[in-house]
């Protein structure tokens, strides 16, 4: 069992290795729900797990990945997926963005995944009965928003919560993906702008490789980092221009409402809450109180540092 290519997530990897060991001996794997913020590698981890599931002959099973936001009807689920890919075959099915599964399909999955001693279920739709033998079929789900998945479906799955990536893990990801040495000092600065996000670390590594190739350099040192971040417009702590704008708006008044922020930034309230405020709060640059939103001392210091 190998998750060597995945950095960090040691507890999760041990748990998945345990499930794989069981699957190789019994042909049975639990159905798993991978939960983590965006860019944390849940899909990669699910795919790596799937790549090691074996069919009854001991060969690697095929995987299909479904983008759940494109699932629209139960009929399509039955016709395009169950009959075409699952019925009579050995396969692993990964539902990506699982919170988008429509309720009709969710209800069907409740029946399909109903646990029993035989580890198999039949599902009938429009006179067609499909057998789900869990020695042959494993369902995996990945989502950032587990709370949006129906609780009865969550109850039928083993939930795998990914750990938050440390800055050191992110540094390892960057180093591993850049095919040239990076100085420790430069890497320390790179780690600070990755926002705890593994996907960003991979993207950053790709950009650094491109920078090194285009400037014909064989290593990435502090001087390169300064030049690199100026070229790409990377801000301290990895803040986006809109997040800096929010801090500036907050600094103008002692308290600001979400509606006011939305009006001034032209962003929806949901987008502000989901995409920007979480990170600013995590860094302690702003705080939300019952009376409204306000900038913190650290937030003011951040804005000062930009001058």
């Amino acid at each position, binding site marked *: 069992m190998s998750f060597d290519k995945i950095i960090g997530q040691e507890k999760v990897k041990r748990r998945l290795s345990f499930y794989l060991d069981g699957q190789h001996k019994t042909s049975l794997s639990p159905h798993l729900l991978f939960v983590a913020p965006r860019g944390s590698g849940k899909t990669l981890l699910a795919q790596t797990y799937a790549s090691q599931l074996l069919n009854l002959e001991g060969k690697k099973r095929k995987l299909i990945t*479904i983008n759940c936001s494109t699932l629209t009807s139960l009929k399509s689920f039955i016709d*395009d997926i169950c009959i075409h890919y699952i019925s009579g075959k050995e396969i692993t099915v990964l539902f990506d963005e699982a919170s988008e599964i429509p*309720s009709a399909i969710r*209800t069907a999955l409740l029946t399909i995944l109903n646990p029993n001693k035989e580890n198999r279920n039949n599902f009938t739709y429009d006179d067609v009965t499909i057998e789900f033998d869990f020695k042959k079929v494993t369902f995996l789900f990945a989502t950032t928003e587990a709370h949006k998945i129906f609780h009865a479906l969550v109850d039928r799955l083993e939930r795998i919560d990914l750990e938050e990536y440390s800055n050191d893990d992110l540094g390892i990801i960057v180093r591993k993906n850049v095919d040239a040495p990076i100085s420790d000092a430069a890497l320390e600065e790179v780690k600070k702008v990755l926002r705890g996000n593994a996907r960003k670390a991979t993207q950053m590594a790709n950009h650094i490789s491109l920078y090194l190739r285009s400037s014909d350099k064989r290593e990435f040192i502090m001087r390169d980092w300064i030049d690199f971040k100026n070229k790409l417009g990377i801000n301290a702590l990895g803040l986006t221009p809109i997040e800096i704008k929010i801090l500036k708006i907050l600094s103008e008044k002692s308290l600001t409402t979400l509606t006011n922020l939305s009006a001034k930034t032209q962003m929806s309230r949901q987008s502000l809450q989901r995409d920007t405020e979480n990170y600013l709060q995590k860094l302690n640059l702003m705080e939300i109180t019952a009376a409204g939103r306000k900038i913190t001392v650290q937030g003011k210091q951040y804005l000062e540092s930009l001058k």
Partner: protein
Amino acid sequence: MPKKPVTKRHLVIKMSDLKKMFGDNDLVCIPKSFARDIAYMLAAHGVSLEELNKKPVVEDEVEIEPKSDKADDATKVQISETCFED
């Protein structure tokens, strides 16, 4: 229309009376909480809430766009297959 109070907050309405008011293609605005309450029954008939109302309705107006084959193409399920080497 005959109405029978069940509790202070509920009414019973005969379906035949509703049918006098609404045609098959009429759009009826109902509270989301009520829709959630009957989601299971709708699902049993192959109707998903997400399909019913993907975008929030603005004010009181609803525009109906005729369903076309192009729309069907755009909503085809995206599936990617991966085979792993032994």
